């Protein structure tokens, strides 16, 4: 809940709103000998909803972890507000980390704390706000994600969708300029997933918050994405980016085309096989006489 006149939460001047908030430059990432991503260049602009898309193992989560400074790149850099996430140390690093919020795939709520205490934790540890203000902010954030009335619940008492909402409330309690969401719709039913999409859109439009989201859900992509970044496992990097509808309808890249049209590569024209033509499960009723034969004559 904020309003912006001269500056955004991260201190980007109004005149610089077209300047990128996050800059990924010549990023090379991997695990040991295995290279996952290389030569990745990417800009994220203030207020946009950016979605990282691609098949399993293409490096979406790796890129996300690099952007939030959780893993060190093999080479290249990630700048948030012109500050290098990986090079920063001490107070500078803490300041960068407070500038964004992250919601993990499982929610990562602390099981020993109530929902309210989970949301209060960053306020207690990272600010000098007095208790009445901390409580008011945390309760408001929970109300904002539709969890008013669940403050005293334990995370284990919440449904999957509610856990994701609580995790988003915790991620945005310090009013960061960017929210990173890892698979926010994973494991949710379509209705809950759509509700979460609506929440993300509401936060993005009303607060001007920037979102970087990793997801597989095409429905969510078309509902909320301003821009999509497509990653490919074999090419170890970005293969396409832009508006999701434009990519779906006009991309000439076979990988992008297959992904958006749910095609399986290597199957002729790429069609998913038709379901087997089975016999009806209820064939002709049995002849009742066969079941009840005439009694044997003595």
């Amino acid at each position: 809940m904020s309003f912006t006149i001269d500056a955004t939460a991260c201190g980007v001047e109004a005149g610089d709103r077209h300047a990128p908030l996050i800059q990924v430059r010549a990023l090379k990432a991997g695990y040991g000998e295995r290279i996952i991503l290389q030569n990745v260049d990417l800009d994220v602009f203030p207020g946009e909803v950016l979605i990282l898309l691609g098949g399993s193992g293409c490096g979406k989560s790796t890129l996300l972890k690099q952007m939030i400074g959780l893993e060190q790149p093999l080479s290249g850099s990630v700048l948030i507000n012109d500050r290098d996430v990986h090079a920063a140390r001490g107070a500078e690093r803490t300041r960068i980390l407070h500038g964004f919020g992250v919601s993990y795939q499982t929610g990562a709520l602390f099981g020993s704390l109530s929902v309210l205490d989970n949301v209060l934790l960053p306020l207690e540890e990272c600010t000098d706000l007095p208790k009445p203000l901390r409580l008011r902010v945390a309760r408001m954030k929970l109300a904002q994600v539709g969890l008013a009335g669940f403050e005293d619940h334990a995370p284990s008492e919440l449904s999957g969708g509610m856990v994701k909402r609580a995790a988003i409330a915790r991620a945005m309690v310090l009013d960061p300029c960017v929210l990173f969401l890892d698979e926010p719709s994973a494991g949710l039913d379509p209705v809950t997933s759509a509700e979460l999409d609506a929440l993300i859109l509401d936060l993005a439009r009303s607060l001007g918050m920037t979102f970087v989201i990793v997801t597989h859900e095409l429905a969510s992509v078309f509902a909320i994405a301003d821009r999509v970044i497509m990653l490919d496992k074999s090419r170890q990097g970005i293969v396409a980016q832009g508006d999701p509808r434009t990519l779906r309808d006009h991309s000439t890249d076979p990988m992008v085309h297959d992904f958006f049209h749910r095609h399986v590569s290597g199957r002729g024209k790429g069609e998913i096989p038709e379901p087997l033509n089975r016999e009806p499960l209820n064939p002709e009723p049995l002849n009742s006489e066969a079941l009840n034969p005439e009694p044997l004559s003595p």
Partner: protein
Amino acid sequence: MQSELFSQVKLEEHPSTASGAFSATLTGRLDVRSTGAIWRRLRRLVGKAGTSRLRLDVSGVGYVDASGLALFVELDEELRARGGGLELVGPRAELAGSLERFQALSRGAAVPARRGGVLERIGRGAQAFWRDVRDLVGFVGLFVSGFAQAFRRPGSIRWRDFWLSCETVGANAVLIIMLIGFLMGLIISFQSAMPLRMFGAEIYVARLLGLSMIRELGPLVTAIILAGRSGASFAAELGTMKINQELDALTTMGLDPVRLLVVPRMLAAMCMTPLLTMVFIVFSLIGGAVVMFSLGYPLVSYTNQVTLSVGVGDLANGLFKSFIFSLLVGWIGCVRGLQTGQGAWAVGAATTSAVVSGIILIAVMDGIFAVLYYVFHY
């Protein structure tokens, strides 16, 4: 006129107006970094001015986040309760809109739940204790049926898991058992030799040590080490399997988690603990021998005294106790693991509970043994 600068925010106070309201001007950014300081400053100024009415000029405020909005709402409520209020002068349209929205959301937020009274909490505690006792009894039945099934068909026991558990419960614990046994024997002999020396009765240290280690301390200390090591490990392992739904996977495969996971672990604990107790006893006697030797007694006198005071019956008595303790420790460790709730915290709680319950059970059972042995003159 005073002014104060907190990072990018500035608060200026003005002389009180004719209406008695205190007035101030706020400019800059009001965010989580600056709001705390501004809150304290404003309350101090209002308190010093002795008024409950505050006119705050916010026309120069460029940015307000949720904490800043909370400040306005909270301060207004506090001043209203004292008969005054907060008047925001010149808020920009965006601020007014955000404030309205914040207040609407705050109204939707729940009132904090009332904490139960002492009686209610005692009642809840008693209820939880009774539920726990009922669960424990239920688990006894479950374990007995699991063991019965396993012993009817010994081939159904996962012997590979049994040997693996024997290694972790037994072989890996040998070093610590040896060390603690040796040190306890050494310390007890030394501490008891000093007063006995005044009566020229140091030689009886051997009898004292032999009897106490074989009948009492050997089984007891080994079982307590087992509770801290293996009981905790059983609870953590099964608890993690439970929160990862591995136990559910076994159940839905039609497999009994008790037969598959609990029986091998408990069998290993039951086989290994008496052996570890023997190791403990031997090394405690070696510790005693070192002390006696250093006091000038030949080893043969020491061993004679030990063998004279302790019989095979005492050793059997100690090993039987040790066997029963291992049953209790293995059982409570597995039960706490299977009872684990949700989340990492629940695994920690299950592990702690396994150790605490294990030690309590050992102490209670040791008391029962003491009474039984006394009654039956054993």
